[in-house]
């Protein structure tokens, strides 16, 4: 090989190495996903292009409205599957590539706070919160950590008893008014063949057992217990937690549901309700609109507050919802806050209400636009349930782990007759030990 050829090769190798270094440097660069030119990236589970989810279309309208109102700031949307968004935000933020704005479900906010993916809003939100005051029906304790508000709720939800009116009517059964009646009615519906499953509760491991835990929490409250103590230690392994599991076992024994629910997560339950194979379920208010849009469903799907042991006294409902936060990597937090103010304004709330979202601001329920909604009265009844019987959903940065463990306990105690107290105690000890 000639000297000149070798020199050329060496030069090329040096250029390649330099290019590699440059690529590596670019990859490890700091800053958020925004380019610093007034663009803010919003990461959300909502798909603005979804033809099926009216919330996505409302999001698009709100973001477009904000962008039109701004000269120097533009919000772009990045849609991420709801099962992945939290871990993606944690990983991206750790590498300096996190979003400017992030939609966080209130039950996951503790995880984000612990991971340092969101900024405290004290510097921005104090005036705003003082201004709206009692207008916010979402309990602020659910988004306050260490004395700081970490995100602003824009949606609230309650868990309601869904029932197929047509199926209950066909079976000649009334809407249950107590937990005992719920068991007997669900058993009767299944026995009569009106539906395959009288009352569906998802016991699947899919979604880390979220559907099961969403029922276990209010039932435990209803029997006088707590999920977590004020210091964050497990409290669900007391008599109330045991009674909640025993009640679920009683539902199984009454024929309210069979082994088929072991394969059901929330989505499966809702699909089965719309298909008419499930007559009743306890699901979120935020899914009612989409479920009713199914063919032949419409007003056959009705909701009432979940009954308790006492007639006329509903079971407490967990209050949770979607919130908007400023990402820890945000280049321009002030601009991000301007968007959050716009996103949670009365006008935007009214747009989301049209999409079946329960607004977090009380004043929205009294506007003429709200009155014009076809289900305004129903939405108001849900609001009343939230205000009168709502409790912030327990929050913990280890909630996913707890949820996955609790559904395992549910499966073992309801379907395999394992001792509920022993199973709950095991999970509680594991949870407390891991938290320490």
């Amino acid at each position: 090989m000639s000297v000149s050829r070798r020199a050329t090769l060496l030069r090329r190798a040096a250029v390649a190495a330099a290019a590699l270094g440059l690529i590596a440097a670019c990859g490890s660069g700091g800053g958020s996903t925004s380019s610093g030119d007034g663009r803010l990236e919003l990461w959300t589970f909502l798909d603005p292009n979804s033809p099926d989810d009216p919330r996505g279309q409302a999001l698009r309208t709100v973001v477009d409205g904000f962008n039109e109102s701004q000269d120097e700031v533009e919000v772009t949307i990045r849609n991420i599957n709801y099962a992945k968004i939290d871990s993606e935000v944690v990983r991206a933020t750790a590498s300096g590539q996190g979003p400017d704005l992030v939609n966080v479900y209130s039950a996951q906010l503790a995880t984000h706070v612990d991971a340092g993916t969101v900024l405290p809003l004290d510097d921005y939100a104090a005036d705003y919160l003082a201004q709206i005051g009692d207008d916010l029906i979402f309990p602020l304790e659910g988004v306050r950590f260490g004395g700081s508000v970490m995100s602003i709720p824009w949606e609230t939800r309650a868990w309601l008893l869904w029932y197929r009116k047509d199926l209950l009517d066909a079976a000649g059964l009334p809407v249950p008014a107590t937990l005992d009646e719920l068991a007997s009615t669900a058993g009767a519906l299944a026995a009569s063949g009106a539906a395959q499953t009288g009352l569906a509760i998802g016991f699947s491991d899919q979604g880390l057992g979220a559907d099961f835990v969403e029922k276990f929490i209010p039932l435990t409250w209803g029997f006088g217990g707590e999920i977590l103590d004020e210091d964050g230690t497990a409290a669900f392994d007391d008599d109330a937690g045991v009674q909640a599991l025993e009640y679920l076992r009683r539902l199984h024994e009454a024929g309210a549901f069979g082994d088929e629910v072991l394969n059901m997560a929330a989505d499966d339950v809702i699909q089965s309700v719309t298909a008419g194979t499930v007559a009743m379920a306890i699901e979120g208010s935020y899914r009612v609109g989409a479920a009713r849009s199914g063919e032949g469903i419409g007003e056959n799907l009705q909701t009432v507050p979940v009954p308790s042991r006492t007639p006329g006294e509903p079971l407490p409902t967990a209050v949770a919802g979607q919130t908007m936060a400023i990402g820890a990597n945000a280049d321009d937090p002030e601009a991000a806050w301007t968007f959050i103010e716009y996103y949670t304004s009365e006008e935007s709330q009214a747009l989301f209400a049209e999409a079946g979202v329960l607004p977090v601001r009380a004043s929205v329920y009294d506007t003429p636009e709200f009155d014009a909604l076809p289900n305004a009265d129903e939405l108001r009844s849900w609001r009343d349930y939230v205000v009168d019987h709502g409790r912030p959903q327990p929050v913990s940065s280890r909630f996913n782990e707890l949820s996955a463990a609790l559904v395992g306990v549910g499966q073992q105690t309801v379907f395999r007759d394992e001792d509920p107290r022993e199973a709950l105690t095991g999970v509680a000890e594991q949870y407390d030990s891991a938290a320490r």
Partner: protein
Amino acid sequence: MTVKSPEAPPVREHRPVPAVQARRRPSTRPRLLPYGLLLPAVVVVAVVSVFPIVFALNLSLHETRFTQLEDFVGLDNYAAILGSSAGWASIGRSLIYVVASLALAIPMSLGIAHLLNRPARFRLVFRALILMPWVISQTVAALLWRWLLNADYGPLGLGDVAGTRIDVFADPVQAMAALILVNVWISYPLATILCLAALQTIPAELEEASDVDGAGPFTRFRRITLPMMAPTLFVVAILLTLLYFNMVTLVLTFTAGGPFGATQLVSLDAFNESFSFFNLGLGAAYSVILFVFNIVFGAAYIKLIRSEGDG
């Protein structure tokens, strides 16, 4: 006659070394050039392969808080897994899953490759059809089979099989069996194609000679086909073993580890601990255990290949 004294050998003239050569000789450039040329490849391999392994090993020896490395805890994360019945149960289920899948996938692929190797009409069409499961993503395959096997609305009608309801996802044994079958369904095309390629390299003369010698199909398969395909089969076994041990998406979407934890595999534990519960240290320990299994199985196959070769 005069005798001449022999001439002294000519003394070689020591010419001064040109200045250019004097400078070149001590230069290390020619000796370093090969290393320089190799460097980019070494860097890429180190970044892509070695760094993640070392990183995972390091993670597994530390306590972690989300993505932050905290205290060094030695082998505590491994002790948490290997010192618990749940950890060993996951390992046992992973072994069942991998071994059962291999036991089904390899013979099945070999059989299908044999059929595809025979002259037949529409052979190309069959080959394309056989490949189809391979091009389907694991998520889609899992959702497809969840729908097919659903006892309530699945088209296979498992809700009423001669008056019996077969709820695959409610029974631990059936759920694991279904998971293995779906796993085989999405992975057999790869093995089939490799087996088919190996079959086509077997000289026709050998088979003709065995015919002349009166060997039946079974003897021919045992004495000619199988020995000649052995290296390919071992490669297939290695590839599938790696694929099966590391499988997450299919398991997560198909059963998510249930019911009753019956399909909770080590790969799923690694995923959940790392990305659902953010216990990266523990998740990394699960990954390293998987890595060790892959190494052990791979080494065993390679040893078998060598012993076959020696034999």
